[in-house]
């Protein structure tokens, strides 16, 4: 049977991984290629690279890093950040990305998902959304969570699926950074509304949070996190052992 996936997310700025990464056994902890290799060997099922560079020069460094990673790491790679046009899909796919995640770019132009799915297939199009409860509703935010939109998350998820997105990343701003666990309430509602795979993001503080995620929302396909993996609070191989002990099907 298909396994639940564990996905570390790397923020890359000017070709370097940001956030205080601290691994004793890596000579250069901010080298995305070394980190990607490390995670792959620990049992990560996929990797997400998020480009937070603002400049064109940084963009070039990012694609260099992506190319070198794809030459050395043979698990699925998803790329997000600054994806606004179909040509941006082309740029990162050529460098070895398997999936491309859209966020603000899809809110500005929902047809981007349709165009990209038509050209590269739905399996390649990931709709990522930042969601926060506002006045009893689930509001979608853009620009890294700085700007609220008129979109309601569950409707937007359904629309994304209709337009050709093959997967959703649901990042709850209410639980993100709090380290109190994933937003299982929101995730359950999203999972009930769509048939495509759903990746949970935001809120993981310890390994048990993943157990709770998959037990409470059995239709969630994957758990994504950044800092708990980067800081070494949770080791992926140990996390997977714990999941297995709890009868959650994982790839060991």
């Amino acid at each position, binding site marked *: 049977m298909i396994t639940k996936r564990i996905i570390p997310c790397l923020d890359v700025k000017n070709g370097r991984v940001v956030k205080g990464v601290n691994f004793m056994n890596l000579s250069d902890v901010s080298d995305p290629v070394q980190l990607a290799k490390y995670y792959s060997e620990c049992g990560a099922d996929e990797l997400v690279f998020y480009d937070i560079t603002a400049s064109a020069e940084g963009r070039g460094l990012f694609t260099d890093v992506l190319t070198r990673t794809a030459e050395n790491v043979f*698990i699925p790679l998803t790329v997000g950040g600054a994806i606004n046009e179909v040509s941006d899909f082309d740029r990162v*796919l050529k460098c070895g990305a398997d999936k491309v995640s859209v966020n603000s770019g899809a809110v500005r132009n929902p047809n981007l998902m349709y165009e990209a799915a038509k050209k590269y297939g739905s399996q390649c199009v990931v709709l990522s959304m930042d969601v926060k409860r506002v006045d009893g509703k689930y509001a979608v935010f853009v620009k890294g969570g700085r700007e609220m939109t008129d979109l309601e998350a569950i409707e937007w998820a359904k629309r994304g699926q209709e337009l050709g997105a093959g997967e959703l990343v649901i990042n709850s701003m209410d639980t993100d950074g709090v380290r109190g666990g994933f937003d299982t309430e929101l995730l359950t509602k999203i999972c009930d509304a769509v048939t495509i795979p759903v990746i949970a993001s935001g809120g993981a503080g310890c390994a048990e949070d993943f157990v709770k995620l998959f037990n409470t929302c059995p239709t969630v*396909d994957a758990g994504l996190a950044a800092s708990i993996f980067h800081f070494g609070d949770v080791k992926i191989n140990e996390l997977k052992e714990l999941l297995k002990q709890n009868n959650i099907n994982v790839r060991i």
Partner: protein
Amino acid sequence: MTAIIDYGVGNLFSLKSSLAYIGADCVVTSDPAVIKKAPRIILPGVGAFEDAAAKLRATGLDELLKEEAKNGKYIMGICLGMQMLFEKSYEFGCHKGLGLIPGEVVPLLGAVPSELKIPQMGWNSLDIKGSKDDLYKYTENGTHVYFVHSYYAKTDSKYITATSEYGIDVTASAKNGRVMGTQYHPEKSGKHGLEILKAFTELK
């Protein structure tokens, strides 16, 4: 030498990188002369069946592949490339494949229990059939490999070399003589995927 066929479908970067990583000689090509000379051929593919089959026909590579198969060459299809080895596909209509392995490609929708998601996207374990195929000489039964697909190959069990359970037994790999295919992506299946590619590149 392994020839990876470039016919304008999908991303060949990872496949080429993975063969380079295991030290296997390979070339990405659409040149019939190069393909004819190579002892092994990989037919990759991502996207829609009809579009990919049309591109293969437009380049005349479909006939070349059939000829090479007849000559006893090792041919491996990956994902959509594997599906194209079969006789026909019911993806948005009914389309003719290369017919190198008997069988047809049908939707997962309706075949698997309705609570399962389509596409099947993620890691699933291999149930390797019978006496282990050469492709699996380095592979243990139960190894996880990476799948992304909405259609699967339905064929006689004698052609099936491995299945994966997704509500039903889904054809994970199939083989007819020296023509074989994997529904999963070995180039995206970590070190165990590389071992499967290594086994293919060692066939002679």
